């Protein structure tokens, strides 16, 4: 349990002590903190997506595990409904609060970012797991991408080590985003967060005051005239930054790479780097450092003094005899197996991109409100 503690209930009769000196210190500290720390958008407690992990080819009549991973921050209060395919039967779950009704299982997920449940496969056949979720601490809700399982092997999620197939690099839910900073004061670090993109954060600093700073980040295909950088490329991105006045802008870029991509391409994660393309120089590898990782991604950070075409690259790891590639061993019929989960297919195009629509809607509303207010103002003159 990781709950946000609330302030105790208070009465209004107690005299408030005024401590000007301490308050002055507090003010100075506050100002210092504001000046030295990058301005970050606070991470709201919200869940923005749910993914399902299940083996693609469970053994006939075997029990297997389905994991639901929630993307977001705690505290978490989420309602989930999973529909188990015909012929498969629900066995148990790690989630404390659930309700089974026919082939539907409802879960109340409280302060957990992952739950698992066990299902027994039929003797043969295939089926599709479907589900939906609703975040009760935000307005987000959506569908969980379908997962097809084929008893005895195969199936859409079965691509993995040794199968010979190379999975398509995951395309993030959002591939193009524009932002505007009304004013950027000299040497003030202004950061913006990006959800569901390869870039997770971009912090900008200018050496002079600039206004109307427009930022456009887009995942692109490699332009034909540009040579490929060395190594294996995970993604190409353009980051364009334009502004009104003359100034030099520098940036701190944080990005993420799926761990599945590192594994599939046997990339040494310490070699992942952000490269920037300068037409007159070629590709420049930026000093890149790994900052963290979770179950899905490894996170990196690099600094740049310019903005143009970027590539996220990695180098192949040297082959090692000590780490043999795991080979799936068929489980005898009727035995209980716990195959390593593989990620389900990417969300279908019709699935909602949680949060994105809300952002677009809010932005549209703001523009509309601004227009109305402007008109009203104009009319009042």
């Amino acid at each position, binding site marked *: *349990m990781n*709950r*946000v*503690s*609330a*302030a105790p*209930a*208070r*009465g*209004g*009769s*107690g*005299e*408030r002590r*005024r*401590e*000007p*000196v301490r*308050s*002055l210190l*507090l*003010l*100075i500290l*506050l100002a210092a903190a504001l000046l030295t720390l990058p301005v970050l958008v606070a991470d709201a*407690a919200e869940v923005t997506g749910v993914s399902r992990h299940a083996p693609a080819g469970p053994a006939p009549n075997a029990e297997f595990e389905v994991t639901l991973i929630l993307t977001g921050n705690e*505290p978490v*209060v989420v*309602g989930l*409904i999973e529909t188990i395919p015909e012929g498969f039967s629900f066995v148990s779950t790690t989630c*404390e*609060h*659930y*309700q089974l*009704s026919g082939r539907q299982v*409802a879960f*109340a997920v*409280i302060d957990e970012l992952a739950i698992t449940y066990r299902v027994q496969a039929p003797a043969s056949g295939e089926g599709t797991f479907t589900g939906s979720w*609703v975040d*009760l*601490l935000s307005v987000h809700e959506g569908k969980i991408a379908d997962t097809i399982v084929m008893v005895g092997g195969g199936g859409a999620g079965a691509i993995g080590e040794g199968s010979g197939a190379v999975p398509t690099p995951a395309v993030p839910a959002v591939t193009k985003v524009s932002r505007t900073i009304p004013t950027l004061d000299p040497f003030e670090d202004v950061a913006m967060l990006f959800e569901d993109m390869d870039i997770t954060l971009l912090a900008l600093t200018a050496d002079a005051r600039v206004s109307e700073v427009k930022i456009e980040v887009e995942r692109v295909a490699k332009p034909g005239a540009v040579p490929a950088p060395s190594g294996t490329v995970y993604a190409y991105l353009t980051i364009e930054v334009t502004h009104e006045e003359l100034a030099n802008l520098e940036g701190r870029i944080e990005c993420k790479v799926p761990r599945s991509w590192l594994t599939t391409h046997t990339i040494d994660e310490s070699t992942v780097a952000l490269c920037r393309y300068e037409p007159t120089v070629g590709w420049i590898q930026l000093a890149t450092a790994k900052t963290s990782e979770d179950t899905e991604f490894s996170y990196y950070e690099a600094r740049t003094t310019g903005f143009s075409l970027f590539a996220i690259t990695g180098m192949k790891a040297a082959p090692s005899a000590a780490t043999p590639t795991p080979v799936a061993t068929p489980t005898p019929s009727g035995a209980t197996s716990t195959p390593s989960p593989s990620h389900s297919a990417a969300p279908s195009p019709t699935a909602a991109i949680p949060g994105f629509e809300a952002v677009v809607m809010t932005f549209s509303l703001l523009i509309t409100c601004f227009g109305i*207010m402007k008109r009203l103002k104009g009319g009042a003159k």
Partner: protein
Amino acid sequence: MRRVVVFMALLVAVAMMAAVQPAAAAGIPGDGNIDNQLTEQELASSILTHLAGGGTLTRAEIRDAAHVYAYWNGEPRSIVDTAGRNVTIYRPVKKIVILSSDSARAIQILGAEDKVVGITETIKNFPFYFPTISQRQVVGTWKEVDWEAVARLEPDMLIAPPTGTVNVNLAADKLKGFNITVVGFYLYVTANYDQVFEEFDELAYLVEKEEEAAQFIAWHDGYLAQVEEFVADREKPDVFLTYTAGAIGKTSDISSYGPGSIFYQLCVKAGGRPITENETSNPKVSAEWVVAKNPDMMIMICGNVFGWWDTTSEPADLLQQLLAGKSWGTLNATKNNTIYAVPWSVTNGFEHTYGIVLLAKLLHPDLPIEPGKVSQEFLEDFLRVDYPEGEKKVLAYSGSTVLMT
């Protein structure tokens, strides 16, 4: 045909009843045993019932329950308001009706203006100060409120002054049965200076904006500490305080401010010594009495403006009217050219932080703080409105001395 008419009449009657009906029932949604402690089990049970399509709670109520569980430790939030009433909320406050510009200012500083659904006429008249709030539905004036209009807005909370023509007890009585939490706050400086900050803290607690309240109070405390430190060892000029209607055209019964009044307190904090220190909180004095006291400075609060005048014409005219008919030529204040007109708003609610700095600057011109800068910070950082650039603003006027930005 008659059946149709009867049916339509019934329909209209039902619609009218539905138009003004109590909001959701009191208590934390999902708190099955009504013990004011929403447990994980109770929340989960509500969610599962709702997902199965059953139960009485709406999706919005389930979200409220989740919020109370996650952020309030599953308990309601309680305070005692300034009228001494126990006020408890059981779910997040989403819609608020406010009945004064002081409340509007406090709500805006807290960044909770999006919650405001109903206002009074005064707030509507200041769109520059309250760009968002001023656009909300007007439900009355400071002395008369359309309570049915308030109920129709279905607010979660109404903020009313603890005393006055329209007060919190009247509001609670008029809104009985509508499940609207009524809370009594002045949100302006009273005889107990600290009270306004206690109210601010409590309001922030109710609308979950504690961090914003702390930031503002730190800003205020910082300036107050600087002023108090600066004036501590300095000689305090004798000051006569008055206001337009209390002094213009009068040679007797001139209204001033005594201990306990807002203006008096701000003047003392700014390093002045009001000559009414031995009087009541609302003393009436004669022009001769003022001559006998011979103040070093006179300050009249006046004008229907917030923050500043765009030109000197209004304060100049008001000062001329103040002095007309009074034999104050021998006063130190007259000789020193220190009879000032300052905007009334410097004593308003949380704008008084700027008011203290402005008064301190008039009383002690070597104070190393620019009042215009404080006003700008207040507007931009806390009210989040644009400070008009490039225009000189008249912050205080004394004929020969114009304090401008």
